[in-house]
Protein backbone atom coordinates (compact mmCIF):
# COMPACT_ATOMS: atom_id res chain seq x y z
CA UNK A 1 0.00 0.00 0.00
CA UNK A 2 2.74 2.37 0.90
CA UNK A 3 4.27 3.85 -2.23
CA UNK A 4 7.76 2.78 -3.30
CA UNK A 5 10.32 5.30 -4.49
CA UNK A 6 13.67 5.11 -6.23
CA UNK A 7 16.84 7.13 -6.42
CA UNK A 8 20.01 6.34 -8.41
CA UNK A 9 22.21 6.60 -5.30
CA UNK A 10 20.37 3.77 -3.61
CA UNK A 11 22.10 0.44 -3.05
CA UNK A 12 19.28 -2.06 -2.91
CA UNK A 13 20.08 -4.99 -0.69
CA UNK A 14 17.28 -5.25 1.87
CA UNK A 15 14.86 -3.58 -0.54
CA UNK A 16 16.05 -5.54 -3.56
CA UNK A 17 12.88 -7.66 -3.69
CA UNK A 18 10.47 -4.77 -3.01
CA UNK A 19 7.75 -4.50 -5.61
CA UNK A 20 8.57 -7.93 -7.04
CA UNK A 21 5.87 -10.01 -5.46
CA UNK A 22 8.28 -11.74 -3.07
CA UNK A 23 5.60 -12.15 -0.39
CA UNK A 24 4.73 -15.14 -2.54
CA UNK A 25 7.04 -17.96 -1.48
CA UNK A 26 7.63 -19.27 -5.00
CA UNK A 27 8.62 -15.82 -6.20
CA UNK A 28 10.86 -15.48 -3.14
CA UNK A 29 12.55 -18.75 -4.07
CA UNK A 30 13.17 -17.47 -7.61
CA UNK A 31 14.85 -14.44 -6.05
CA UNK A 32 17.43 -16.50 -4.11
CA UNK A 33 15.06 -17.07 -1.21
CA UNK A 34 15.89 -19.65 1.48
CA UNK A 35 19.36 -20.17 0.01
CA UNK A 36 21.04 -18.32 2.85
CA UNK A 37 19.46 -20.48 5.55
CA UNK A 38 20.75 -23.59 3.79
CA UNK A 39 24.17 -22.02 3.65
CA UNK A 40 23.81 -21.29 7.38
CA UNK A 41 23.14 -24.94 8.08
CA UNK A 42 26.39 -25.79 6.30
CA UNK A 43 28.37 -23.06 8.04
CA UNK A 44 27.19 -23.98 11.54
CA UNK A 45 27.02 -21.57 14.51
CA UNK A 46 30.68 -20.52 14.55
CA UNK A 47 30.77 -20.04 10.79
CA UNK A 48 27.62 -17.90 10.81
CA UNK A 49 28.81 -15.73 13.67
CA UNK A 50 32.18 -15.24 11.94
CA UNK A 51 30.39 -13.98 8.80
CA UNK A 52 28.14 -11.75 10.87
CA UNK A 53 31.10 -10.24 12.69
CA UNK A 54 32.92 -9.70 9.39
CA UNK A 55 29.84 -7.95 7.96
CA UNK A 56 29.89 -5.15 10.56
CA UNK A 57 26.12 -5.36 10.59
CA UNK A 58 24.83 -3.29 13.49
CA UNK A 59 21.35 -3.33 14.97
CA UNK A 60 18.91 -1.38 12.84
CA UNK A 61 16.46 -0.75 15.66
CA UNK A 62 18.39 2.23 16.94
CA UNK A 63 21.17 1.26 19.31
CA UNK A 64 23.51 0.03 16.57
CA UNK A 65 24.90 -2.89 18.56
CA UNK A 66 27.00 -5.28 16.42
CA UNK A 67 24.74 -8.20 15.50
CA UNK A 68 27.41 -10.90 15.39
CA UNK A 69 28.69 -9.90 18.80
CA UNK A 70 25.16 -9.94 20.21
CA UNK A 71 24.62 -13.47 18.97
CA UNK A 72 27.96 -14.60 20.38
CA UNK A 73 26.81 -13.69 23.91
CA UNK A 74 24.24 -16.47 23.96
CA UNK A 75 25.62 -19.41 25.96
CA UNK A 76 26.16 -22.58 23.95
CA UNK A 77 24.70 -24.79 26.65
CA UNK A 78 21.48 -23.86 28.33
CA UNK A 79 19.09 -25.81 30.56
CA UNK A 80 16.23 -23.64 29.35
CA UNK A 81 15.14 -23.35 25.72
CA UNK A 82 16.74 -20.53 23.74
CA UNK A 83 14.68 -18.13 21.68
CA UNK A 84 15.01 -15.77 18.76
CA UNK A 85 12.77 -12.74 18.70
CA UNK A 86 12.12 -10.42 15.82
CA UNK A 87 11.24 -6.93 16.96
CA UNK A 88 8.64 -5.66 14.52
CA UNK A 89 7.10 -3.18 16.92
CA UNK A 90 8.25 -0.32 14.70
CA UNK A 91 6.89 2.78 16.40
CA UNK A 92 9.61 5.39 16.69
CA UNK A 93 8.01 8.47 15.17
CA UNK A 94 9.63 9.13 11.82
CA UNK A 95 10.17 5.45 11.03
CA UNK A 96 8.18 3.48 8.48
CA UNK A 97 10.70 1.07 6.98
CA UNK A 98 9.85 -2.26 8.62
CA UNK A 99 6.39 -1.84 7.17
CA UNK A 100 7.84 -2.15 3.68
CA UNK A 101 9.94 -5.17 4.61
CA UNK A 102 6.94 -7.02 6.05
CA UNK A 103 4.79 -6.06 3.09
CA UNK A 104 7.21 -6.80 0.28
CA UNK A 105 9.65 -9.33 1.65
CA UNK A 106 8.26 -11.13 4.74
CA UNK A 107 10.22 -14.30 4.02
CA UNK A 108 13.51 -12.43 4.39
CA UNK A 109 12.57 -11.76 8.02
CA UNK A 110 11.65 -15.40 8.58
CA UNK A 111 14.87 -16.51 6.93
CA UNK A 112 16.93 -14.07 8.97
CA UNK A 113 15.30 -15.25 12.18
CA UNK A 114 16.01 -18.85 11.20
CA UNK A 115 19.67 -18.07 10.59
CA UNK A 116 19.88 -16.33 13.97
CA UNK A 117 18.30 -19.39 15.58
CA UNK A 118 20.77 -21.76 13.96
CA UNK A 119 23.64 -19.49 15.02
CA UNK A 120 22.69 -19.58 18.69
CA UNK A 121 21.23 -23.09 18.82
CA UNK A 122 17.62 -22.05 19.28
CA UNK A 123 14.66 -24.07 18.05
CA UNK A 124 11.95 -21.43 18.23
CA UNK A 125 11.67 -17.98 16.69
CA UNK A 126 8.93 -15.44 17.32
CA UNK A 127 8.11 -12.61 14.95
CA UNK A 128 6.43 -9.79 16.89
CA UNK A 129 4.53 -7.23 14.79
CA UNK A 130 2.84 -4.16 16.21
CA UNK A 131 -0.95 -4.29 16.47
CA UNK A 132 -1.58 -1.40 14.10
CA UNK A 133 0.11 -3.39 11.32
CA UNK A 134 -2.71 -5.93 11.08
CA UNK A 135 -2.40 -6.34 7.32
CA UNK A 136 1.29 -7.05 7.75
CA UNK A 137 0.61 -9.59 10.46
CA UNK A 138 -1.70 -11.33 8.00
CA UNK A 139 0.99 -11.28 5.32
CA UNK A 140 3.41 -12.74 7.87
CA UNK A 141 0.95 -15.43 8.99
CA UNK A 142 0.60 -16.56 5.40
CA UNK A 143 4.35 -16.45 4.82
CA UNK A 144 4.99 -18.61 7.89
CA UNK A 145 2.28 -21.08 6.85
CA UNK A 146 3.82 -21.27 3.37
CA UNK A 147 7.27 -21.89 4.84
CA UNK A 148 5.86 -24.76 6.90
CA UNK A 149 4.03 -26.15 3.87
CA UNK A 150 7.32 -26.31 1.97
CA UNK A 151 9.04 -27.99 4.90
CA UNK A 152 11.36 -25.02 5.48
CA UNK A 153 10.17 -24.63 9.06
CA UNK A 154 9.20 -27.24 11.63
CA UNK A 155 10.91 -30.60 12.06
CA UNK A 156 14.12 -31.47 10.25
CA UNK A 157 14.43 -28.33 8.13
CA UNK A 158 15.99 -28.93 4.71
CA UNK A 159 16.76 -32.49 5.79
CA UNK A 160 19.40 -31.21 8.20
CA UNK A 161 18.00 -32.88 11.30
CA UNK A 162 17.54 -29.41 12.82
CA UNK A 163 14.09 -28.58 14.20
CA UNK A 164 13.02 -24.97 14.05
CA UNK A 165 9.57 -23.57 14.81
CA UNK A 166 8.60 -20.11 13.62
CA UNK A 167 5.68 -18.26 15.23
CA UNK A 168 3.98 -14.91 14.75
CA UNK A 169 2.80 -12.65 17.54
CA UNK A 170 0.88 -9.38 17.47
CA UNK A 171 1.01 -6.33 19.74
CA UNK A 172 -1.82 -4.00 20.69
CA UNK A 173 -0.36 -0.51 20.62
CA UNK A 174 2.64 0.43 22.74
CA UNK A 175 5.81 2.27 21.74
CA UNK A 176 7.68 1.08 24.80
CA UNK A 177 7.33 -2.53 23.70
CA UNK A 178 9.96 -1.75 21.07
CA UNK A 179 12.45 -1.87 23.96
CA UNK A 180 13.81 -5.41 24.11
CA UNK A 181 12.90 -6.43 27.65
CA UNK A 182 9.48 -4.75 27.40
CA UNK A 183 8.83 -6.70 24.22
CA UNK A 184 9.55 -9.92 26.09
CA UNK A 185 7.13 -8.93 28.83
CA UNK A 186 4.52 -8.20 26.19
CA UNK A 187 5.08 -11.55 24.52
CA UNK A 188 4.62 -13.18 27.91
CA UNK A 189 1.16 -11.59 28.08
CA UNK A 190 1.99 -8.75 30.45
CA UNK A 191 2.22 -4.98 30.49
CA UNK A 192 5.30 -3.97 28.53
CA UNK A 193 7.21 -2.71 31.54
CA UNK A 194 10.97 -3.03 31.04
CA UNK A 195 13.13 -5.41 33.06
CA UNK A 196 16.18 -4.44 35.03
CA UNK A 197 19.46 -5.62 33.53
CA UNK A 198 21.66 -7.52 34.15
CA UNK A 199 20.84 -10.27 33.52
CA UNK A 200 20.76 -9.42 29.83
CA UNK A 201 18.37 -11.16 27.42
CA UNK A 202 21.21 -13.18 25.91
CA UNK A 203 21.38 -14.99 29.27
CA UNK A 204 17.89 -14.59 30.75
CA UNK A 205 15.27 -13.49 28.26
CA UNK A 206 11.93 -14.77 27.04
CA UNK A 207 10.38 -17.20 29.56
CA UNK A 208 13.73 -17.12 31.34
CA UNK A 209 15.63 -18.64 28.42
CA UNK A 210 18.61 -17.12 26.60
CA UNK A 211 17.19 -14.87 23.91
CA UNK A 212 18.42 -13.06 20.84
CA UNK A 213 16.30 -10.09 19.91
CA UNK A 214 16.85 -8.20 16.68
CA UNK A 215 15.03 -5.54 14.72
CA UNK A 216 13.12 -6.68 11.62
CA UNK A 217 15.47 -4.82 9.28
CA UNK A 218 18.49 -6.39 10.96
CA UNK A 219 17.05 -9.85 10.45
CA UNK A 220 16.04 -9.06 6.87
CA UNK A 221 19.67 -8.06 6.23
CA UNK A 222 21.06 -11.31 7.60
CA UNK A 223 20.31 -13.57 4.58
CA UNK A 224 22.02 -11.00 2.33
CA UNK A 225 25.09 -11.03 4.56
CA UNK A 226 25.42 -14.77 4.08
CA UNK A 227 24.67 -14.63 0.36
CA UNK A 228 27.14 -11.81 -0.31
CA UNK A 229 29.65 -12.89 2.32
CA UNK A 230 30.31 -10.83 5.42
CA UNK A 231 33.30 -9.04 3.96
CA UNK A 232 31.51 -7.95 0.78
CA UNK A 233 28.57 -6.72 2.84
CA UNK A 234 30.87 -4.71 5.10
CA UNK A 235 32.45 -3.06 2.07
CA UNK A 236 29.13 -1.57 1.02
CA UNK A 237 29.24 0.65 4.10
CA UNK A 238 32.07 2.38 5.90
CA UNK A 239 34.40 1.40 8.71
CA UNK A 240 32.61 -0.42 11.55
CA UNK A 241 29.28 0.31 9.83
CA UNK A 242 28.59 -2.44 7.34
CA UNK A 243 25.98 -2.45 4.61
CA UNK A 244 22.98 -0.26 3.98
CA UNK A 245 20.02 1.10 5.86
CA UNK A 246 16.49 1.87 4.95
CA UNK A 247 16.14 5.58 5.67
CA UNK A 248 12.60 6.87 6.15
CA UNK A 249 12.62 10.42 4.77
CA UNK A 250 9.73 12.53 5.96
CA UNK A 251 8.60 16.03 6.83
CA UNK A 252 9.05 19.05 4.58
CA UNK A 253 10.76 17.26 1.73
CA UNK A 254 9.84 17.37 -1.93
CA UNK A 255 10.23 13.60 -2.31
CA UNK A 256 9.65 11.85 1.00
CA UNK A 257 9.88 8.07 1.00
CA UNK A 258 11.90 5.10 2.20
CA UNK A 259 15.29 4.90 0.48
CA UNK A 260 18.04 2.34 0.95
CA UNK A 261 21.40 4.07 1.20
CA UNK A 262 24.83 2.77 2.09
CA UNK A 263 25.97 3.63 5.60
CA UNK A 264 28.25 6.63 5.50
CA UNK A 265 26.10 8.43 2.91
CA UNK A 266 26.00 12.19 3.29
CA UNK A 267 23.07 13.60 5.26
CA UNK A 268 23.12 16.72 3.09
CA UNK A 269 22.77 14.61 -0.06
CA UNK A 270 20.05 12.51 1.54
CA UNK A 271 18.05 15.68 2.09
CA UNK A 272 18.85 17.69 -1.05
CA UNK A 273 19.36 14.99 -3.64
CA UNK A 274 17.57 11.84 -2.55
CA UNK A 275 14.71 13.59 -0.78
CA UNK A 276 14.49 16.33 -3.41
CA UNK A 277 15.30 19.15 -1.00
CA UNK A 278 13.00 21.26 1.11
CA UNK A 279 9.56 21.54 -0.47
CA UNK A 280 7.94 24.72 -1.72
CA UNK A 281 11.26 26.51 -2.12
CA UNK A 282 11.61 27.06 1.61
CA UNK A 283 14.82 26.88 3.59
CA UNK A 284 15.95 24.14 5.92
CA UNK A 285 15.67 24.89 9.63
CA UNK A 286 16.51 21.58 11.30
CA UNK A 287 16.71 17.83 10.84
CA UNK A 288 15.82 15.10 13.27
CA UNK A 289 18.22 12.49 11.91
CA UNK A 290 17.23 9.17 13.48
CA UNK A 291 13.65 9.15 14.67
CA UNK A 292 11.96 11.45 17.18
CA UNK A 293 14.22 10.54 20.08
CA UNK A 294 17.42 11.79 18.47
CA UNK A 295 18.67 15.34 19.07
CA UNK A 296 18.11 17.65 16.11
CA UNK A 297 20.76 19.11 13.85
CA UNK A 298 20.63 22.70 12.64
CA UNK A 299 20.76 23.57 8.95
CA UNK A 300 24.51 24.21 9.14
CA UNK A 301 25.23 20.88 10.87
CA UNK A 302 24.18 18.51 8.12
CA UNK A 303 27.56 17.87 6.53
CA UNK A 304 27.94 14.57 8.29
CA UNK A 305 27.97 10.95 7.24
CA UNK A 306 24.98 8.79 8.02
CA UNK A 307 26.60 6.12 10.14
CA UNK A 308 26.43 5.29 13.82
CA UNK A 309 29.82 6.75 14.73
CA UNK A 310 29.66 10.00 12.72
CA UNK A 311 26.21 10.89 14.03
CA UNK A 312 27.37 10.16 17.56
CA UNK A 313 30.33 12.49 17.04
CA UNK A 314 27.90 15.18 15.88
CA UNK A 315 26.08 14.87 19.21
CA UNK A 316 23.13 12.94 17.91
CA UNK A 317 22.30 9.40 16.82
CA UNK A 318 21.52 7.44 13.70
CA UNK A 319 18.72 5.82 15.68
CA UNK A 320 16.05 4.14 13.61
CA UNK A 321 16.99 5.89 10.38
CA UNK A 322 13.96 8.17 10.41
CA UNK A 323 15.10 11.49 8.91
CA UNK A 324 12.56 14.22 9.65
CA UNK A 325 13.08 17.53 7.85
CA UNK A 326 11.77 20.81 9.25
CA UNK A 327 11.50 23.92 7.10
CA UNK A 328 12.02 27.52 8.20
CA UNK A 329 8.31 28.03 8.90
CA UNK A 330 8.25 25.36 11.59
CA UNK A 331 7.86 26.41 15.20
CA UNK A 332 10.43 24.49 17.22
CA UNK A 333 8.51 25.00 20.47
CA UNK A 334 5.43 23.45 18.95
CA UNK A 335 7.48 20.62 17.49
CA UNK A 336 9.10 20.00 20.88
CA UNK A 337 5.68 20.01 22.50
CA UNK A 338 4.33 17.41 20.08
CA UNK A 339 7.45 15.31 20.63
CA UNK A 340 7.07 15.28 24.41
CA UNK A 341 3.32 14.74 24.17
CA UNK A 342 4.14 11.44 22.49
CA UNK A 343 6.63 10.33 25.13
CA UNK A 344 4.32 11.33 27.93
CA UNK A 345 1.58 9.22 26.35
CA UNK A 346 3.92 6.25 25.99
CA UNK A 347 5.66 6.40 29.36
CA UNK A 348 4.52 3.40 31.40
CA UNK A 349 5.07 5.21 34.68
CA UNK A 350 7.38 2.57 36.10
CA UNK A 351 10.33 4.93 36.59
CA UNK A 352 9.56 8.22 38.30
CA UNK A 353 12.02 10.43 36.34
CA UNK A 354 10.32 9.42 33.09
CA UNK A 355 6.75 9.50 34.37
CA UNK A 356 7.06 12.87 36.10
CA UNK A 357 9.61 14.31 33.71
CA UNK A 358 7.56 13.77 30.57
CA UNK A 359 4.46 15.13 32.30
CA UNK A 360 6.17 18.28 33.55
CA UNK A 361 7.92 18.83 30.25
CA UNK A 362 4.63 18.62 28.43
CA UNK A 363 2.97 21.02 30.87
CA UNK A 364 5.85 23.48 30.61
CA UNK A 365 6.04 23.36 26.84
CA UNK A 366 2.29 23.63 26.45
CA UNK A 367 2.14 26.73 28.59
CA UNK A 368 5.18 28.09 26.84
CA UNK A 369 3.76 27.64 23.38
CA UNK A 370 0.48 29.22 24.46
CA UNK A 371 2.38 32.37 25.42
CA UNK A 372 2.34 31.81 29.17
CA UNK A 373 6.03 31.05 29.53
CA UNK A 374 8.44 32.93 31.74
CA UNK A 375 12.18 33.22 31.17
CA UNK A 376 13.20 30.76 33.87
CA UNK A 377 11.03 28.07 32.22
CA UNK A 378 13.67 27.66 29.55
CA UNK A 379 16.26 26.61 32.10
CA UNK A 380 13.70 24.57 33.98
CA UNK A 381 12.90 22.60 30.84
CA UNK A 382 16.60 21.93 30.43
CA UNK A 383 16.97 20.97 34.07
CA UNK A 384 14.03 18.58 33.91
CA UNK A 385 15.30 16.89 30.78
CA UNK A 386 18.86 16.62 32.09
CA UNK A 387 17.61 14.90 35.21
CA UNK A 388 15.82 12.22 33.24
CA UNK A 389 18.93 11.12 31.36
CA UNK A 390 20.30 7.76 32.45
CA UNK A 391 17.92 7.47 35.37
CA UNK A 392 15.38 5.00 34.03
CA UNK A 393 15.17 1.23 33.53
CA UNK A 394 14.65 1.52 29.79
CA UNK A 395 15.75 4.13 27.26
CA UNK A 396 12.31 5.75 26.98
CA UNK A 397 13.33 8.36 29.53
CA UNK A 398 16.43 9.21 27.51
CA UNK A 399 14.43 9.11 24.30
CA UNK A 400 12.08 11.74 25.70
CA UNK A 401 14.75 13.97 27.21
CA UNK A 402 17.37 13.99 24.45
CA UNK A 403 15.36 15.71 21.71
CA UNK A 404 14.00 18.33 24.12
CA UNK A 405 17.50 19.15 25.32
CA UNK A 406 18.57 19.49 21.70
CA UNK A 407 15.77 21.92 20.89
CA UNK A 408 16.37 24.07 23.95
CA UNK A 409 20.12 24.21 23.43
CA UNK A 410 20.05 24.85 19.70
CA UNK A 411 16.96 27.00 19.36
CA UNK A 412 16.90 28.96 22.58
CA UNK A 413 16.05 32.14 20.67
CA UNK A 414 12.82 30.56 19.46
CA UNK A 415 11.83 29.80 23.01
CA UNK A 416 12.65 33.38 23.96
CA UNK A 417 10.52 34.67 21.08
CA UNK A 418 7.49 33.09 22.78
CA UNK A 419 8.07 34.94 26.07
CA UNK A 420 6.00 37.69 27.68
CA UNK A 421 2.69 36.51 26.32
CA UNK A 422 3.73 36.95 22.69
CA UNK A 423 1.87 34.77 20.23
CA UNK A 424 3.76 32.01 18.42
CA UNK A 425 5.83 33.81 15.77
CA UNK A 426 4.95 31.13 13.24
CA UNK A 427 1.23 31.39 13.80
CA UNK A 428 -1.21 28.62 13.20
CA UNK A 429 -0.57 26.61 10.09
CA UNK A 430 -3.68 25.99 8.12
CA UNK A 431 -3.85 22.82 6.07
CA UNK A 432 -2.92 24.13 2.59
CA UNK A 433 0.00 25.97 4.14
CA UNK A 434 1.29 22.88 5.89
CA UNK A 435 0.87 20.55 2.96
CA UNK A 436 3.76 21.27 0.65
CA UNK A 437 3.90 18.57 -1.97
CA UNK A 438 1.90 15.42 -1.96
CA UNK A 439 3.21 12.34 -3.65
CA UNK A 440 0.49 10.16 -5.07
Amino acid at each position, binding site marked *: *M*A*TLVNHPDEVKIVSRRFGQGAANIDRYLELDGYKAVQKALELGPDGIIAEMKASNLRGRGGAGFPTGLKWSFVPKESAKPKYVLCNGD*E*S*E*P*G*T*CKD*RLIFEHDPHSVIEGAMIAAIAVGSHAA*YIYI*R*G*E*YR*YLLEIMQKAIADAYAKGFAGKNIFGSGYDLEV*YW*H*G*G*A*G*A*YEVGEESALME*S*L*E*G*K*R*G*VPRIRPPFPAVVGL*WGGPTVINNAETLASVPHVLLMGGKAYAEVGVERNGGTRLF*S*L*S*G*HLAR*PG*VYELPLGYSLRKAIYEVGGGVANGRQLKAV*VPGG*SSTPCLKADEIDIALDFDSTMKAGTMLGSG*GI*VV*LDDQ*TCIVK*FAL*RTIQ*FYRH*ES*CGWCIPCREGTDWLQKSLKRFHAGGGVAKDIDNIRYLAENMLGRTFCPLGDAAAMPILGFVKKFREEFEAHLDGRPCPFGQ*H*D*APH*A*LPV*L*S*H
Partner: protein
Amino acid sequence: MKFSDQLEARFAGMITHYPARRSLLVPFLLYSQDEYGYVTDEVIAELSRRLEITELDIRNVISYYSMLRTKPAGRFNVQVCTNICCLLRGGEEMLAHAREKLGVQVNKGITPDGMFSVEEVECIGACSWAPAMQVNYTFHENLTPEKIDKILDDYRSEAAHK
Protein backbone atom coordinates in the same frame (compact mmCIF):
# COMPACT_ATOMS: atom_id res chain seq x y z
CA MET B 1 -19.24 -17.37 27.88
CA LYS B 2 -18.80 -19.19 24.64
CA PHE B 3 -16.47 -17.61 22.12
CA SER B 4 -17.62 -17.34 18.53
CA ASP B 5 -16.39 -20.19 16.33
CA GLN B 6 -13.86 -17.92 14.72
CA LEU B 7 -12.47 -16.74 18.04
CA GLU B 8 -12.45 -20.28 19.40
CA ALA B 9 -10.41 -21.37 16.40
CA ARG B 10 -7.97 -18.50 17.03
CA PHE B 11 -7.62 -19.49 20.66
CA ALA B 12 -6.93 -23.11 19.76
CA GLY B 13 -4.44 -22.07 17.07
CA MET B 14 -2.54 -19.62 19.24
CA ILE B 15 -2.36 -21.45 22.55
CA THR B 16 0.01 -24.02 21.07
CA HIS B 17 2.50 -21.29 20.11
CA TYR B 18 3.70 -20.70 23.61
CA PRO B 19 5.16 -22.60 26.55
CA ALA B 20 3.10 -20.40 28.91
CA ARG B 21 -0.63 -19.96 28.34
CA ARG B 22 -0.98 -16.30 29.16
CA SER B 23 1.36 -15.38 26.33
CA LEU B 24 -1.54 -15.27 23.91
CA LEU B 25 -3.22 -12.58 25.98
CA VAL B 26 -2.28 -9.41 24.10
CA PRO B 27 -2.99 -10.48 20.51
CA PHE B 28 -6.04 -12.45 21.61
CA LEU B 29 -7.58 -9.47 23.40
CA LEU B 30 -7.25 -7.50 20.19
CA TYR B 31 -8.89 -10.25 18.16
CA SER B 32 -11.75 -10.40 20.67
CA GLN B 33 -12.13 -6.64 20.37
CA ASP B 34 -12.40 -6.97 16.59
CA GLU B 35 -15.17 -9.48 17.11
CA TYR B 36 -17.25 -7.73 19.78
CA GLY B 37 -16.31 -4.08 19.24
CA TYR B 38 -14.41 -3.81 22.52
CA VAL B 39 -12.97 -6.06 25.20
CA THR B 40 -16.08 -7.14 27.06
CA ASP B 41 -16.43 -8.13 30.73
CA GLU B 42 -17.43 -11.58 29.55
CA VAL B 43 -14.25 -12.01 27.50
CA ILE B 44 -12.17 -10.90 30.49
CA ALA B 45 -13.94 -13.38 32.78
CA GLU B 46 -13.58 -16.19 30.28
CA LEU B 47 -9.89 -15.51 29.68
CA SER B 48 -9.31 -15.29 33.40
CA ARG B 49 -10.76 -18.78 33.74
CA ARG B 50 -8.93 -20.26 30.78
CA LEU B 51 -5.53 -18.70 31.44
CA GLU B 52 -5.75 -19.02 35.21
CA ILE B 53 -4.91 -15.41 35.87
CA THR B 54 -7.03 -12.86 37.72
CA GLU B 55 -9.42 -10.50 35.99
CA LEU B 56 -7.52 -7.65 37.62
CA ASP B 57 -4.33 -8.87 35.99
CA ILE B 58 -6.06 -8.86 32.59
CA ARG B 59 -7.50 -5.38 33.16
CA ASN B 60 -4.02 -4.18 34.08
CA VAL B 61 -2.73 -5.47 30.77
CA ILE B 62 -5.62 -3.90 28.85
CA SER B 63 -4.92 -0.50 30.39
CA TYR B 64 -1.34 -0.58 29.11
CA TYR B 65 -2.06 -1.08 25.41
CA SER B 66 -3.48 1.92 23.59
CA MET B 67 -5.43 -0.07 21.01
CA LEU B 68 -7.41 -2.03 23.58
CA ARG B 69 -10.64 -0.49 24.84
CA THR B 70 -13.38 -1.58 27.22
CA LYS B 71 -16.06 0.64 25.68
CA PRO B 72 -17.51 0.54 22.18
CA ALA B 73 -16.17 2.71 19.35
CA GLY B 74 -17.81 3.49 16.05
CA ARG B 75 -18.11 0.73 13.50
CA PHE B 76 -15.41 2.66 11.67
CA ASN B 77 -12.88 4.02 14.11
CA VAL B 78 -11.09 6.90 12.38
CA GLN B 79 -7.60 7.18 13.87
CA VAL B 80 -5.79 10.30 12.74
CA CYS B 81 -2.07 10.59 13.45
CA THR B 82 -0.82 13.98 14.64
CA ASN B 83 2.67 12.89 15.63
CA ILE B 84 5.66 14.87 14.34
CA CYS B 85 5.81 13.80 10.68
CA CYS B 86 2.06 14.10 10.26
CA LEU B 87 2.09 17.38 12.22
CA LEU B 88 4.54 18.86 9.72
CA ARG B 89 2.21 17.99 6.85
CA GLY B 90 -1.11 18.99 8.34
CA GLY B 91 -2.07 16.15 10.69
CA GLU B 92 -3.80 18.46 13.16
CA GLU B 93 -5.87 19.98 10.37
CA MET B 94 -6.82 16.51 9.17
CA LEU B 95 -7.95 15.58 12.67
CA ALA B 96 -10.00 18.76 12.94
CA HIS B 97 -11.50 18.13 9.54
CA ALA B 98 -12.55 14.57 10.39
CA ARG B 99 -13.99 15.75 13.69
CA GLU B 100 -15.99 18.54 12.08
CA LYS B 101 -17.23 16.43 9.22
CA LEU B 102 -18.45 13.70 11.53
CA GLY B 103 -19.58 15.99 14.32
CA VAL B 104 -18.05 13.95 17.12
CA GLN B 105 -15.54 14.80 19.79
CA VAL B 106 -12.07 13.36 19.52
CA ASN B 107 -11.39 10.29 21.69
CA LYS B 108 -14.98 10.16 22.88
CA GLY B 109 -18.35 9.85 21.31
CA ILE B 110 -19.76 7.98 18.36
CA THR B 111 -21.93 9.36 15.57
CA PRO B 112 -25.64 8.82 16.35
CA ASP B 113 -25.87 6.10 13.70
CA GLY B 114 -23.07 4.20 15.45
CA MET B 115 -20.97 4.43 12.33
CA PHE B 116 -17.94 6.57 13.23
CA SER B 117 -15.69 7.55 16.10
CA VAL B 118 -12.60 9.72 15.85
CA GLU B 119 -9.36 9.16 17.70
CA GLU B 120 -6.13 11.13 17.79
CA VAL B 121 -3.37 8.56 17.65
CA GLU B 122 0.39 8.40 17.96
CA CYS B 123 2.72 7.40 15.12
CA ILE B 124 1.21 4.67 12.96
CA GLY B 125 4.28 4.19 10.77
CA ALA B 126 3.20 6.21 7.76
CA CYS B 127 5.75 9.00 8.21
CA SER B 128 6.92 9.15 4.60
CA TRP B 129 3.31 9.29 3.40
CA ALA B 130 2.03 11.85 5.89
CA PRO B 131 -0.50 12.99 6.85
CA ALA B 132 -2.08 9.64 7.48
CA MET B 133 -4.86 7.88 9.32
CA GLN B 134 -6.16 4.40 9.86
CA VAL B 135 -9.81 3.49 9.65
CA ASN B 136 -9.93 0.37 11.77
CA TYR B 137 -6.86 -1.37 10.33
CA THR B 138 -6.80 0.20 6.88
CA PHE B 139 -4.19 2.87 6.16
CA HIS B 140 -5.10 6.05 4.30
CA GLU B 141 -2.13 8.20 3.42
CA ASN B 142 -1.11 11.49 1.79
CA LEU B 143 -4.39 12.89 3.09
CA THR B 144 -6.09 16.11 2.15
CA PRO B 145 -9.44 17.33 3.52
CA GLU B 146 -11.04 16.38 0.19
CA LYS B 147 -9.58 12.89 0.37
CA ILE B 148 -10.91 12.46 3.90
CA ASP B 149 -14.39 13.47 2.72
CA LYS B 150 -14.31 10.86 0.01
CA ILE B 151 -12.90 8.13 2.24
CA LEU B 152 -15.54 8.68 4.91
CA ASP B 153 -18.34 8.86 2.33
CA ASP B 154 -17.12 5.59 0.86
CA TYR B 155 -17.24 3.87 4.25
CA ARG B 156 -20.73 5.19 4.81
CA SER B 157 -22.01 3.90 1.48
CA GLU B 158 -20.13 0.62 1.93
CA ALA B 159 -21.99 0.11 5.21
CA ALA B 160 -25.32 1.07 3.61
CA HIS B 161 -24.91 -1.61 0.95
CA LYS B 162 -24.31 -4.40 3.42
